[in-house]
């Protein structure tokens, strides 16, 4: 993975740049000690790291604006950072960039139950948004696996999803408004407590723009009344194809579960060894969750199990208690960690049309044999968002490169069958060069033209999303 060569001019001006940032920000909001900036060298794509020029941690929108304005005037690139949980390298700095972290902006500004929204500062963690409203019977729907740690700012930047988006949508479907600072330091407000935009849907444009159009400091989020209850059913099959066919039939029958999760044998075994969730040793496992009152849950599960039984499941277990429900989810939620016990892994995020599931799984198996690296599959089957986990050994020379090459082939396969490179993690640096496989030259050009509008000098997170050769002329 290449990053652009840092600007020698900026590196030489480090002392001057830090002094200028100290002038416009409180003393403790600027970090330049190389020991203290170490933690900002990478995000959750930890294979890549780089020390930043400095780190700023503003405590308000005004301080954010001051920091961005100063960097803009000095021509210094800025890399925004939420909690640093990006799996795509979205918060990876370059040597000549200033990291702008929103971690200090973590307050709740307003919770309005009559109008079903909450306004928070963007550094607040995803789970603590729900935490702020659940005593009143509400929740915030998008639930990425990293929800304990990840920040709303990062959720907006990457348009994060989660296990329950089959019913509730992803971040962009739950975002009502933002306060955002542009690279030039201008504060703009978009959206609010009302629905939909009068003019262009700038909110939809900003959500998922990977921190390249502005730094969001406040977000107004839709909150929903909690359902009366929820219950999962666990269904095991002796083939991936049959499990995939079962998912199709359930959707076709007009039942819309809140989640349909799929795990294959390598992941089932790893999760079972790790959590002892009681998973059967089968080829494919589905966890299907439905919501509602007791009677509604029974009605939906009745339909689902009737369909599942037509596919001769090896195991079919309806949860009978909250403990059992937690147990069924425990293995799934720990699946990534469990695979990490076996070896290092790279987690992919391609999305495919649900109808192409068996074909894609066969293709992944063939690539696994070709490259000699094991793969586990765990994903959101209802919406086709795959998460193949490729196992490799980081200490073995050449293994990371081999794993990356295989990952690229899997993602190209996802695009070939009609899908896309990334369903919820974002492009970042990880999939940047693969963008050519999904988009033509003009498709990329019109996207980059949008960045030209918001950040004409290309200073905000410039080396992300777009292939370096495509963005080169604009970055200089």
């Amino acid at each position: 993975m290449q990053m652009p060569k840092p600007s020698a001019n900026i590196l030489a001006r480090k002392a001057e740049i830090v002094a200028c940032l100290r002038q416009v920000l409180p003393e403790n909001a600027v970090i330049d000690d190389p020991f203290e900036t170490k933690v900002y060298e990478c995000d959750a794509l930890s294979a890549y790291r780089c020390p930043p020029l400095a780190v700023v941690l503003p405590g308000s929108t005004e301080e954010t604006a001051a920091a961005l304005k100063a960097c803009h005037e000095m021509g210094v690139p800025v890399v925004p950072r939420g909690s640093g949980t990006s799996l795509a390298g979205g918060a990876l700095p370059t040597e000549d960039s200033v990291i702008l972290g929103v971690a200090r902006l973590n307050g709740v500004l307003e919770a309005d139950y009559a109008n079903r929204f909450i306004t928070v500062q963007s550094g607040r963690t995803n789970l603590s948004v729900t935490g702020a409203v659940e005593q009143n019977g509400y929740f915030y729907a998008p639930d990425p696996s990293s929800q304990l740690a990840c920040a709303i700012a990062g959720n907006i930047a990457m348009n994060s999803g989660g296990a329950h988006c089959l019913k509730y949508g992803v971040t962009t479907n739950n975002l009502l408004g933002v306060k955002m600072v542009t690279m030039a330091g201008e504060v703009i407000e978009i959206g609010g407590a009302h629905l939909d935009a009068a003019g262009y849907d700038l909110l939809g444009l900003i959500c998922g723009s990977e921190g390249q159009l502005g730094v969001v400091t406040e977000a107004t989020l839709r909150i929903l009344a909690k359902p009366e209850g929820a219950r999962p059913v666990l269904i095991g099959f002796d083939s991936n194809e049959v499990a995939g066919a079962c998912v199709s039939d359930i959707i076709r029958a007009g039942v819309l579960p809140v989640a349909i999760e799929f795990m294959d044998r390598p992941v089932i075994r790893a999760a079972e060894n790790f959590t002892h969730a009681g998973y059967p040793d089968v080829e494919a496992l589905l966890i299907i969750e439905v919501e509602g009152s007791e009677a509604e849950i029974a009605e939906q599960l009745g339909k689902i199990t009737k369909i599942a039984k037509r596919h001769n499941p090896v195991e079919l277990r309806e949860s009978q208690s909250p403990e059992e429900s937690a147990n069924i989810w425990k293995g799934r939620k720990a699946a990534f960690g469990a695979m990490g016990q076996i070896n290092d892994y790279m987690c992919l995020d391609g999305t495919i049309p649900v109808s192409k599931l068996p074909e894609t799984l066969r293709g992944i198996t063939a690539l696994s044999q070709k490259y000699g690296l094991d793969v586990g599959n765990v994903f959101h089957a209802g919406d086709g968002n795959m998460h193949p986990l490729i196992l490799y050994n980081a200490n073995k020379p050449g293994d990371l490169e081999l794993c990356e090459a295989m990952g690229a082939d899997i993602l190209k396969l996802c695009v070939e069958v009609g899908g896309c490179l990334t369903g919820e993690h974002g492009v970042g640096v990880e999939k940047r060069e693969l963008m050519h496989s999904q988009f033509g030259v003009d498709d990329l050009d019109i996207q980059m033209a949008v960045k030209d509008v918001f950040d004409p000098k290309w200073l905000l997170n410039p080396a992300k999303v777009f292939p370096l050769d495509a963005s080169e002329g604009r970055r200089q």
Partner: protein
Amino acid sequence: MKPETEAELADIVASAKAPLEVIGGGTRQIGRTKGDPLHSSGLSGIRLYEPEALTLVAQAGTPLAEIETLLAENGQRLPFEPYDLRALQGTIGTPTIGGVVATNASGPRRIQAGACRDSLIGVRFVDGLGRILKNGGRVMKNVTGYDLVKLMAGSHGTLGVLTEVSFKLLPAPEATATVLVAEAETTSAATMAKAMASPFDVSGSAHANGTTALRLEGLEGSVSYRSQALANLLGGEVATFDWVAQRDVHAFAGVEGDVWRISVKPSGGPLMAEALRRLGAEKVIFDWAGGLLWVLASKGSPLRPAIKSGHATLIRGEGQTFPPEPAPIAALSAALRQKFDPRSLLNPGRMA
């Protein structure tokens, strides 16, 4: 001009020397522009329909009715319940799916299933230079690059001419029920908020003429349970309600006066209605749990001063269609238009 293929359409735009008025079915007259008519209705036909993947791809000029019929035959539907403006505006023609997207037309189910922009997962379009561009795709989770899909929804043909649109679908419900509560406008916002705060998954919430209506959809047993529970909670009764008339605002069809569509913070609806009445509003119909006001006003009534937050669009009548934007937003909008349509050929002035 009525091209039959995307390539033909691209050639027309590329070689255009004068402004073009982009027309789908011509049934949604929102905003004004002047230009040579460019019809997209020649680009018609459903390209792909995968019921088991809840996905549909159609050319932009495909009649909405053709899509809705096919989906209904398969027990599915477009989630966002697009409204039909023909009765209200007195327009004639065949609504197209491209026109639905260009105006982000979303009905009562907006509060539960999202707007058109939330179900739209992919677009192909021709920009002002005549380039054929694509964004998004045919999968429901996609964060690959910037989301121009949302930007195109509701851009009224000013950023590009849509040629193909892709949607995520939902199963049509087995059953539908409505709970009606007889009450005054002043208390309706609280009633609708109470319904939305319940766990009963309300999919429509409207108020007019002393009646608040709350819709529930889903499996047979579930709807029966939830409608009873909601009726008990609110002191209402399960009854019938014409949601199509609500969606298409039949109450204002053929009645003299301007019609406004105003998006507001739901709890502020009744107070705003009072303020609007002082400025010439005659009738107000609430939708979206109080967050959407359809207003009938005497011709030329200057309603905008009453709208302190949210936004108002003049759907029928003479005057400025869209609200003025704050300076920084207006600057971004103008700059985006300049990038997508540098020669100002596509529906110039329609949104400005």
